[in-house]
Structures are given as structure tokens and as C-alpha cells.
């Protein structure tokens, strides 16, 4: 049977804030070919069945981080998840868990963005350097200390995976802490102590109970769980140091 005649059932969690009291499921029958992603499935529905179906997407190549959704209950990037892997079963897509649903598959990310802003995600130079002095020198060891934590695409799948974030939306959460850790570990940066205030705060790392699912679903192998948990140790050290040295760790 030629590919194009295969039809998969896609069940979508729909929610229109202007007409629905709560989300409900709708099923669409979508013809698909082997190279069709779940995202393309959603696009097919939008183009052919219902133009009001709403979701975010752009790059289609797993790098812009916009197309995350729950696919059969698991947080995934829909552009790199393929319909062929679910056929002949029905596939269910829903908005990312743990976030408020704005409409259909679109969730409210404003909280996440505020968290990103709160961690001071930029180099606060240890030693200022002028442009004529050229680049900072970083040895391979210094480079390797932070590079893994730079690959986060802000897809927030880790937040959809983290029950502690679901239970406490104030938790800074895996990706933002991974980014914070990225800057702390960068030899060019000297502001780890400033960022400690946030790490050690009630919104900080101690919300994490090491569920570890965040790292499991991360499409870019950032291992945010590692960043969070390393910082528990750092925060504990800082906490006890306060009693030992007159100046203490941070405030």
C-alpha cells in the first residue's frame, strides 16, 4: 500500500478560552507518509480540517525549541517525533504539562521567561577586558566545564517533566538553573556568589527532589538535573560557611 494512503488517528487536546470551560479531546484522521513528523500531522489538521488549531513551531529541525508538547503523555519536540513510530495506534497530543494552557497546544511561558531573566544569564566579567586585548583565553578544561550547559534550547520540556515544578510553579526549575550553572562555570564570569542568593532561596534548588525525569526528556542532553543537584551541594556549603566566616557566603 503506498504511504500516502495510510491514515493515523491523532487525538488532540483542544481548548479555546473563549468558548470552552475546560479542555476536551478531538480526533482527526490524518493521512501520513514515513517522513512526516507529529508537527506536520498538526499542520495537516490546521491546513485541512480546522484552521483554528493552535500550536507553536518554527525551525522544524529541533533547534528553536518552540514545538514541545505531550505526545502520548511524554514531553517531546513534535518536529523530531514521527507518526510512523505510533502507527497503527492512535496518538494523543496535548499541551506541555505543568504549564497553564492558553489555547490548544500553546502554554503560558511568561513565568519561565521571568526565571531566565532572574538568573543573570550573562557574563559578569571576572576581569574586564577591552576589545583590543582580543578574546579571553580558555583552556580545553575551562571550556569543557560549561559547554554542555550551553546547549539548552529553552524548549521547557524539562519543566513539563518535573513534578516539583508542577507542584510549585515558583521553583526556578531545571533549564534556568542549568543556564545559571553555565555562567557560574564559565571562566570568564565572576558572579557565582551573586547568583547564589537565588540558588539558595526558597524558589531555588531545594525544591528538587532528584526525580531526574528532566534530564531524561531533554532533547539536547543538557542534563539539567545535574546542574540543579550540583548546586544543592554548593548552596549547602554556602549555608554552613555563613556560620564559619564573618562575611559568610552571600547575604
Amino acid at each position, binding site marked *: 500500500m503506498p504511504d500516502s494512503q495510510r491514515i493515523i488517528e491523532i487525538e488532540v487536546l483542544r481548548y479555546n*478560552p473563549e468558548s470552552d470551560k475546560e479542555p476536551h479531546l478531538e480526533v482527526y484522521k490524518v493521512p501520513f507518509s514515513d517522513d512526516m513528523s507529529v508537527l506536520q500531522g498538526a499542520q495537516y489538521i490546521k491546513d485541512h480540517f480546522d484552521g483554528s488549531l493552535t500550536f507553536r513551531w518554527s525551525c522544524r529541525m529541533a533547534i528553536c525549541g518552540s514545538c514541545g508538547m505531550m505526545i502520548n503523555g*511524554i514531553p517531546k519536540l513534535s518536529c523530531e517525533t514521527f507518526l510512523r513510530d505510533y502507527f497503527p495506534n492512535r496518538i494523543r497530543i496535548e499541551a506541555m504539562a505543568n504549564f497553564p494552557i492558553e489555547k490548544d497546544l500553546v502554554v*503560558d511561558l511568561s513565568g519561565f521567561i521571568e526565571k531566565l531573566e532572574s538568573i543573570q544569564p550573562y557574563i559578569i566579567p571576572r576581569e574586564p577586558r577591552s576589545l583590543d586585548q582580543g578574546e579571553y583565553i580558555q583552556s580545553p578544561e575551562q571550556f569543557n566545564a560549561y559547554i554542555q550547559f550551553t546547549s539548552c534550547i529553552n524548549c521547557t520540556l524539562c519543566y513539563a517533566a518535573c*513534578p516539583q515544578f508542577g507542584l510549585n510553579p515558583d521553583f526556578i526549575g531545571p533549564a534556568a538553573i542549568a543556564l545559571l550553572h553555565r555562567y557560574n562555570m564559565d571562566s570568564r564570569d565572576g558572579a557565582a556568589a551573586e547568583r547564589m542568593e537565588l540558588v539558595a532561596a526558597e524558589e531555588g534548588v531545594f525544591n528538587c527532589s532528584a526525580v531526574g*525525569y528532566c534530564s*531524561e526528556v531533554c532533547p539536547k542532553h543538557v542534563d539539567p538535573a545535574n546542574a540543579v543537584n*550540583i548546586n544543592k551541594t554548593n548552596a549547602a556549603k554556602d549555608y554552613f560557611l555563613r556560620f564559619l566566616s564573618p562575611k559568610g557566603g552571600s547575604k
Partner: protein
Amino acid sequence: MSKRRPYVRSMDGWWKKNPFYVEYMIHESTALFVAAYAFTLLVGLVRLGQGEVAWNGWLEAMKSPLSLICHVVFLLAIMYHTYTWFKIMPITLPPIIVGGKKVGPEVITGSGLLAAVVASVFMLGLVWRIAQ
């Protein structure tokens, strides 16, 4: 006036929704058994403080079938705790670099489990020697 009405989904029963969470809850619940065992020891300690008769009573109670069954359950649960404790260990440690390469998670978990085995054998040996 904005027509936004973000819908917040309930977290009720979240731990049932994904095998990963179910496993998490199971390994978290091993703490109950650790606590139960620690209380058993606490009772023993109190009995020890009350003198020889009381202590022998406790030793006797430890021989009851109920106690034995409980301890088999404790053993299994706490062994699972040991396994999962070291399984999670890699995410809690800063990267360990050996010979310019990052040590893999399996190696860390493996070393932890190995340490537990060594500790157990050491402890058994020690007690065995003391008992002789």
C-alpha cells in the same frame, strides 16, 4: 479587556501518569521501610537500656515469624533503596574527569554499588569476628 483565560490542569494523581513517576514513588517509599527498621532498632536500644531481661525479650521478639517476614521485606526494600540511591548518584555529582574524559554514569553507579557490597562484606566480617 483581555480574553485570556489560562487553564491550569490539576496535579492530582500525577505520579500514576507515567512509569517513570511510578518508579520514583516506589523508590521514595523505601524510606518508610528505612524508618520502620530504624524504629525497630530504637526499641531495641531502649530495651537494652532497660537491662538484660528486657533485651532478651526484644531478641526473642525478633525471632517471631512476623518479625522475620518484616525483616525480609525491609531487606528487599532497603536493597532497592541502595540500588536507586546509586542510580541517581550521577546527577548529584559534579563531573568527574579521569584522564581528560568524563566518567560515565554507569561507572559512578557501579562504583557506588560496589562500595555498598564492600561495606556489607566488611561489616559481616567484622561482626563475625567479634562474635567468635
